[in-house]
């Protein structure tokens, strides 16, 4: 673990801060992610220079609270899962359930858990895409409320 220096992915994403939390939109898969304050902080620490231990220490300083290595690894696993790290890393959390992971970390943590909540925009956003008038060859290319591909355009 000492050699691990995770790097946050910065390409093809849009980031909006909101009261220390982050809303991250992934342009590659049209998924939106909400990072809790701690997850956001850890993600921002992933600059390819900080080791897991250093991230842990910085997290302790920032939140004025003891955190263990598992806390950071849980955050990294959450980020891994959603493709928000440049290179996936082995955290040891991948093979256990999220509930189990939370139990493992949550007992000791006195601060907000580093979690990532996600929503797949195209699958659920029946009103999102403004596809009206965009070219298409089949209805599958049109996102509601434009549900029809007619005359080569989504309507």
């Amino acid at each position, binding site marked *: 673990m000492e050699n691990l220096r995770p790097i946050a992915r910065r390409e093809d994403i849009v980031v909006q801060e909101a009261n220390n939390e982050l809303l991250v939109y992934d342009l590659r898969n049209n998924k939106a992610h909400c990072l809790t304050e701690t997850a956001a902080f850890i993600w921002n620490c992933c600059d390819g220079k900080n080791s897991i231990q250093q991230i842990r220490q910085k997290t302790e300083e920032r939140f004025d609270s003891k955190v263990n290595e598992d806390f950071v690894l849980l955050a990294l696993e959450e980020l891994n899962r959603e493709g928000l790290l440049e290179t996936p890393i082995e955290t040891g959390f991948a093979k256990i359930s999220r509930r189990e992971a939370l139990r493992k970390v949550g007992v000791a943590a006195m601060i907000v858990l580093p979690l990532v909540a996600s929503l797949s925009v195209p699958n659920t956003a029946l009103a*999102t895409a403004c596809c009206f008038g965009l070219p298409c060859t089949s209805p599958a290319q049109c996102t509601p409320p434009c549900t029809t591909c007619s005359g080569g355009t989504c*309507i």
Partner: protein
Amino acid sequence: MRKICIESFGVKVNISTEFEEDFLQIEKILTTGLGGCFRIIDEVNGGFHFHIGGKEEKALFLDGEEIYKGSQDAVMEVFDSKLRVGIACRADKTFIHAGAVGWKGKAIIFPGFSYKGKSALTAEFVKLGADYYSDEYAVLDEKGLVHPFPKYLSLRGIIDDLKQVDTPVESIGGKVGKDPIPIGMVLITEYEPGVSWNPEFLSQAQGMLEIVSHTVPFSERPAETLKFLKKALDGAKIIKQKRGEAAEFARKVLQML
């Protein structure tokens, strides 16, 4: 050939028909479907063009391409819906697919997909004294203020449970909001019979996560939209709570404000 050119939220639309009887229907749709949020203009440069024509069957054309063919009622229904979608997509304001009412000078908006009960919930708020803003789109300006888009309420249960009936808000004792107002509350809600009242307060980022999927220009301008949503939601309560009957739910929500 009859034609009318309108501008709505900065979008210019040219509407024409080969049939005299359709023209009256088009004028009615402009009132019921756009809630008067348009002005008649002389000529359209740019924008888009709807045309109703056809021979044996009526057909709806968009910018010269046939997009729908069917009975008169069906063509008009599609025109009504596509007119709003087209305006929402190209407007100079941000359209959030949501019901919207005004209460004590603040807007309550409740994003939701079609057929998820936005109109029924809107009607219940209005019956309790809230000002009507819209049952389909919360229209926000660049300051994040919600503007009225008072299309007729699309209520079910009048003819049967499926057919929507366009209903003026005044007919249920309501009135239309006049002024642009800031968002005071966002309700993330969906129907679930028998659910108990236990509202969960969301953070601003969690609220944005819930709302982005309902914001019309999001996929085209994600960065600008997220920045805009942050501003629009500043100071708003964001609550997630499934709802049982709309009337009871609306009463409980208003008691919180």
